[in-house]
């Protein structure tokens, strides 16, 4: 497993500086406060699991990280740049370093899988042959090489999520945001998606934030690694835990837990114990 320093340098990041930093962030919609004084950091190479009851502000938090929403107060830093004070034009440039997997995939339904996955490459003016090669590579990564010419309406929910992951990783982003990638999927498909998330984490060491409602998905990521040779998830030896996988739990817009897997499982907080039970 590469060190944080190696991971950070691989992505052109400073090993000591956080990739994402929230400083006392609050946001409301129509008088309803969704996030209240949220502060946390995500370091290079870290996989941060966002847990919490539905409506707790997790998706809003992820959209704030990508600059899709602006906070009412507080400051947000991504790659050391304050995005909460950045105009939209500059955000477009910054977002090119971020991959996002949306809750319902958000594939463009009027274009096929190849054009969806190549969307960012086409916008950047990459040559068609090069774009095609990289699309094939990204689709092979999510084991969907055969679906390249299909349209989103012809795909199952799980396949759409995998195309969405391929679209997010095709440019080799320095940060990936997964908004409930297993939401609404059957357990077998969910496991496939989690294996892909682990594959991206262990192969590319990309910093990521992942929302999930399924505790077993979170703990699978914390207790397993992706075996590239066997191409499947394997448990870490001797009950070890993946040290770069950490947890952030939100409830009613506030952070109720921020720490490692071990700290989470040993938490004495009655609400967290009940939530984990």
């Amino acid at each position: 497993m590469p060190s944080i320093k190696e991971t950070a340098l691989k992505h052109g990041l400073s090993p000591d500086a956080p990739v994402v930093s929230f400083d006392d962030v609050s946001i409301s919609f129509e008088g309803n406060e969704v996030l209240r004084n949220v502060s946390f950091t995500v370091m290079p190479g870290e996989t941060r699991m966002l847990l919490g009851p539905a409506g707790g502000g997790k998706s809003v938090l992820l959209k704030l990280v990508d600059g899709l929403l602006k906070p009412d107060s507080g400051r947000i830093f991504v790659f050391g740049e304050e995005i909460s004070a950045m105009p939209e034009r500059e955000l477009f440039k910054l977002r090119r370093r971020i991959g996002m997997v949306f809750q319902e995939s958000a594939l463009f339904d009027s274009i096929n899988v190849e054009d969806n996955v190549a969307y960012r490459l086409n916008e950047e003016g990459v040559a068609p042959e090069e774009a095609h090669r990289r699309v094939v590579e990204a689709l092979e990564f999510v084991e969907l090489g055969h679906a390249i010419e299909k349209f989103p309406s012809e795909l199952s929910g799980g396949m759409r999520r995998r195309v969405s992951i391929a679209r997010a990783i095709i440019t080799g982003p320095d940060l990936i945001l997964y908004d409930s990638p297993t939401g609404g999927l059957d357990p077998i498909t969910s496991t496939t998606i989690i294996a892909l998330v682990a594959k991206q984490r262990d192969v590319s060491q990309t910093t990521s934030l992942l929302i999930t409602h399924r505790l077993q998905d979170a703990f699978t990521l914390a207790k397993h690694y992706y075996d590239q040779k066997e191409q499947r998830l394997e448990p870490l030896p001797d009950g070890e835990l993946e040290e770069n996988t950490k947890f952030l739990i939100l409830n009613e817009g506030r952070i109720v837990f921020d720490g490692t897997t071990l700290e989470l499982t040993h938490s004495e907080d009655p609400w967290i114990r009940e939530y984990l039970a």
Partner: protein
Amino acid sequence: MPIPLPSPTAWVKSKLLALQEYSLLAGRAFRSLLTPPIYWGDIFQQMDLIGVGSLPIVVLTGFFTGCVLALQAATALQEFGAVSKTGNLVALSMVKELGPVLTGLMVSGRNASGMASELGSMRVTEQIDAMRALGVDPVRKLVAPRVLATVFMLFWLSILSMCMGIMGGGLVAVFLLGLDGHAYFTSTYSALVWADLWQGLTKPVFFGFIISSIGCYFGMQTKGGTQGVGRSTTEAVVASSILIIVSDFILTRFLIGILGR
């Protein structure tokens, strides 16, 4: 339980906010057309959808409006023994008013609704957010091409509608009213002066902007799933149709003031 009445202050605030949002969107769309990247592929695709796609309804509307206008004009003019002036009336009505306004209303019904529903569906399925997340400006990619394509194509569609109206009026004048074809077309030609043409050709530019910017605005503001898409579509057609009629009055007054007729 009685339904609470909305506060007048809140209502006014919400309308002012909507006006501000609309102005910002229109301004950003206009600015996007002045700086690269300009999505020419999307512009030509929209020109095809809006212009070529609207041809049948514009041709039919223009033609039959001209026919009806000739019939009605002849009835009224007969009282003064001036049936031979039918061509003048058809030409002036079609060029100055009915051509641009009816084409605007037809294209509004077809395309403002189409834009609102297409962009609205993209909005509620997070495709607009996905576009932003992929580093692409949705205003530049989706709104600006629609605005430019509608303004450009409505101009030509209005000219086509005017021609079809005069032609329809001519057919009625010749075959139903027994007028001389040559005399009819000569009177239409002689009735029109440059000021009339300026009036008829200025209006579609404004109407095209209204149709596309309103359609895109309601689409981009859609909330509330499929029900919200339906609501946006209806509101886009209603708002753009009303604005076409209202702006027609203002433009007519303004152009008469400038052009003298």
